[in-house]
């Protein structure tokens, strides 16, 4: 990756909600739809849209199952999702350093 750190940002991940989804899924190992919706303060429809984008990009997997009679949807990070999250965090840190450097200079 060369040039300005912003050039290294992944458009799919560089967004508050999607970064939030990846962060929660990474930390939780596996996260249920309802937990994500509450944590990120989203509507079900809005969250579903973001999940579709991430799933299409191969960053998450979505598994549907039942807990008793209640349907539950579980979201997990794929290997590519973990890498994308790591890369995004690195790029954000680089960007902050770059901004701080510009402010200081």
């Amino acid at each position, binding site marked *: 990756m060369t040039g300005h750190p912003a050039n290294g940002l992944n458009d799919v991940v*560089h967004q508050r*909600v999607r*970064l939030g989804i990846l962060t929660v899924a990474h*930390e939780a190992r*596996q996260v249920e739809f309802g937990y994500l919706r509450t944590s990120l303060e*989203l509507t079900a429809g809005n969250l579903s849209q973001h999940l579709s984008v991430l799933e299409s990009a191969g960053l998450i997997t979505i598994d549907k199952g039942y*807990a008793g009679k209640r349907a539950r949807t579980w979201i997990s990070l794929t290997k590519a999702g973990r890498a994308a999250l790591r890369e995004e965090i690195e790029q*954000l840190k680089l960007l902050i350093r770059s*901004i701080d450097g510009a402010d200081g200079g």
Partner: protein
Amino acid sequence: MTTPSATADDGPRRLLEDSRLLAQRVRATQRATWFPLLVFAAVTFAAIPVYRYVHPSLTCRSGQGGIRVCLVYTSAGLVYWPIALVIAYALIATFYVRRARARGVGTRVNRYVVAGVILALLMGFVSVWTAMHPPIGDNVLGLHLRGARLAVFAGSAGPATAIGLALLFLAVVERSWGLVVLTVAYLAVALSPAVLLHQISGHLSVWAFLPRLLLEGGLLLLGAIAFALLQRPWREIGR
């Protein structure tokens, strides 16, 4: 967090800070530090009748110059601890997994449980080996140990060390400095020469083991109560 696309709110600092807060919230939802502490307190207190009512065994060895060394030990204790600890870890794993799933997250406790079981079995093996091969004179595995040092060395192969080391591992998994502090205090008490020497020098009393178990179990129980109170507000946030 309802913004559908990149906005001024998506500044790198804000994004990182949001990620950090979300990760913290997930960890808080997953934590149940009080439960392993409560289980180990129960296991420690349950050892009291084992030590009190099971007759001690004796292993003797003859050394150079006709020196005969005998070691008195509670054979039931050798069996009790590994079995009790493995059952405890099975309980802890089940509790963590069920609780995490009920809250809509996964759990990272598997590594702690595996480490704990390995430590428990290792402790059981070392305890049995030590009972079968009592040290002659002050020579323990080539080290010349006496008095307090010998007591600490012998005590370090006991169940408290297995529990304590595994709790340190849990502290890393749960990123809990509070648990690190509690575990260090627990190990300091459990491996304190004063406590260990009391048990050895008080061998004439059938209750010589009691202060040690009460101290260890009491500390774990207090820790369980403290963590249950401390983590209660976080539990509400996770819902």
